[in-house]
């Protein structure tokens, strides 16, 4: 009986397909085209939004732009304080197919936050460049900027890999990576106390206040963060000065791992 009931409908459909009514057919084709377009569009969006960028952050005069130039071209370049971002595709040396987009952001106080806002969503990894020579003087500023990067909601959600590159190791007075790590941990420990004790924001409920960094109760440690953190020493200028190569094998190895 059921088959009987379906039969006339199937017959009607078969008749339609054999003698197509142009109006109905065109409508069906149009709907199909729209559906396919939507699928392709979503696919393309998904591809584009996959994070392929490595951000170079740091204070002013940390050596980001020189590091950027060395990584891309291998040559030494005289650089000026950046006032805008620069981006280029970096091919990892041994593996030709793997590439990342290196983005060099300005470190100046008035520009760094707005450029970070623009690029943080696309970041797969962050290289935080620290001037090892002037570190002792600039500890508070370095820690403040690092803190701002770490408590950012987008960064916490995506948890990009973090590399802290202690630059300018060719100078004799440069501090070692271990010392920089200890100092930063101490300073960040203090900062998270003072920042969370600041008066709550105007619409406190909406933003929920600054995120807590690390575990409460224990002293701050970089291992408490949700992302992988590494410290390397490097020198963008290189031990032989301007003619020779830059001294950053660790950095390149890390980039190869990331790509």
């Amino acid at each position, binding site marked *: 009986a059921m088959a009987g009931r379906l039969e006339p409908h199937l017959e009607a459909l078969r008749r339609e397909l054999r003698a197509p009514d142009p109006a109905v057919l065109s409508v069906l084709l149009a709907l199909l085209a729209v559906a396919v377009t939507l699928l392709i569009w979503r696919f393309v969006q998904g591809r584009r939004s996959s994070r392929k960028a490595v951000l170079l952050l740091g204070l002013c005069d940390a050596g980001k732009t020189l590091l950027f130039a060395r990584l*891309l071209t291998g040559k030494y370049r005289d650089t000026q304080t950046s006032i805008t971002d620069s981006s*280029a595709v970096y091919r990892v040396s041994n593996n030709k197919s793997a590439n990342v987009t290196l983005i060099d952001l300005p470190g100046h106080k008035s520009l760094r936050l707005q450029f970070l806002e623009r690029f943080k969503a696309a970041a797969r990894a962050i290289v935080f460049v620290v001037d090892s020579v002037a570190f002792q003087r600039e500890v508070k500023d370095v820690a403040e900027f690092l803190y701002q990067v770490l408590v950012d909601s987008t960064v916490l959600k995506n948890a990009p890999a973090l590399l802290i590159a202690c630059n300018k190791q060719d100078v004799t007075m440069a501090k070692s990576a271990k010392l920089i790590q200890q100092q930063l941990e101490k300073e960040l420990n203090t900062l998270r*106390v*003072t920042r969370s*004790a600041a*008066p709550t924001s*105007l619409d406190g409920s909406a933003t929920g206040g600054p995120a807590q960094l690390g575990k409460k109760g224990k002293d701050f440690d970089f291992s408490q963060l949700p992302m992988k953190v590494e410290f390397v020493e490097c020198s963008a200028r290189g031990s032989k000065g301007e003619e020779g190569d830059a001294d950053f094998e660790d950095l390149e190895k890390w980039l190869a791992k990331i790509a």
Partner: protein
Amino acid sequence: VGFQKILTLTYVDKLIDDVHKEFRDKYRNEFQQKGTLGLLNGTFDFKDDFMRLLRDAEESSKVRAPTVMKTFEQSLKSQKTVKCMIETRGEKPKEKVKNKKNKGSKKEGTEAVAAPGKASAGDKQPSAAGDREELTKDEILQKNREEFFKRHMKAGEKSSKSPKPEAQKEKGKKPRVWDLGNSNAKVLDYSNSATNGSAEACPVEEFDPDTALGDRNREPGRLYDLEYESDDEAEEEKVIQNPSKPSAKKGGLGGMFGMLKGLVGSKSLTREDMDPVLEKMKDHLIAKNVAAEIAVQLCESVAKKLEGKVMGTFTTVTSTVKQALQEALVQILQPQRRVDVLRDVMDAQRHRRPYVVTFCGVNGVGKSTNLAKISFWLIENGFSVLIAACDTFRAGAVEQLRTHTRRLNALHPPESHGGRTMVQLYEKGYGKDAAGIAMEAISYARNQGFDVVLVDTAGRMQDNAPLMTALAKLIAVNAPDLVLFVGEALVGNEAVDQLVKFNKALADHSMAQTPRLIDGIVLTKFDTIDDKVGAAISMTYITSKPIVFVGTGQTYCDLRSLNAKAVVAALMKA
């Protein structure tokens, strides 16, 4: 990048534009094809071009050489005959005048020249009679000087003569005695006793009813309303609207196509496109209590930034402008250097000195109230506070602070903080010098081991010069770690004036190379404004210093920190 303030060269802006265009045009291909790698790898041989442009710019701005002085032969004087230059005593005034004019003397006073004084004539005569052609400049000067003195002497003689006839005239007047003790009411009473109270007091000729009453058509006894001039304005608006309407109709079809074209294509923004949108935005900002000049400057800078920018597909001019304005506002509100008071207090603790905060502002903005709130917050974080009552003028200021101190101590008794009193008041009563009290308070805090000193000053108007000097002296002498300007969120255009004048006063009266200016702003009475939060923008724009605290009420817990994004969202909300 060029810094205009170091070298005030007039051609810098134009030079930068020219260099920019030339560089871009010359290396256009490299940029377009290779992008950043082209920048890094390319060699840019631009030095010759740059030197050429620099030379052009310098030449265009060179001031014209000062005009060369005429030689003696070219001047008129050499063409005059000898005879007209001879001066003799008793010469006619007309010739003297002509002589003077020829020599280019500016001294007028023809009548004074008329009779050269007998005294100076003697020494003049031999030189006058002699070589006429070689009247040097010095001699001319000397001659003029002598004539000038002669004139003065003449005038002196004249003036000495004139008071005498006047004095004789004065004797004729009746002496007026002003001695109150002997005041004779009768002598001073000039009224005509016969006319007091009588109806014919004012002679009829002097009183004109028309001019006195004004409008003759008014109803007697009725009180009219204040007349508006709105009728004229309404007429003007109607007149303006009428011509615009037909033009709108004509451009209707074209406008629609233009809008569609603008939606889809890649159109670059021009000033004309942005102007109506910016006008609307400016009015919106002013309606939200942003100072008028700040709103104008903001819109100008957004226009400059967006000029020539290529819009993406499906973005309207309005949305682009709004987004740019929003970004600019967020950047203004987010400070360059975040003032972290707790961190700095910890630093000062390590160096065993107190952290000094000074509050300044105009009258009635809430300095004392917010000082109490901030001290409560500091105590909650475990720092001991000394309040210095440097408001020695306003009645009740010291008592107000004493009450706050008592309340805070009741909330945080010494027992719960290891036996030390968390808040103490340092006061010296009324009428004393504020700077001196502040200095004593700071040294007292150092001796007793207080962590923070909060200095409360009297409210003062920004154009009250002596009070501003006193404030500047207090800040210059005591060198506080943080100078906070307290401003209320209700203030409108006044904010600009207040902050500018306060900063100026602090800079002018400081002896140091880098004067202490306002370091941060406390925005008070934030709960009284709904979303008219424009005062925050005005204040941060003027000083470019961050808003450290926001006061949102009168209890101790009503202290907040600024959330830039929320404020900007409230500002841009329609």
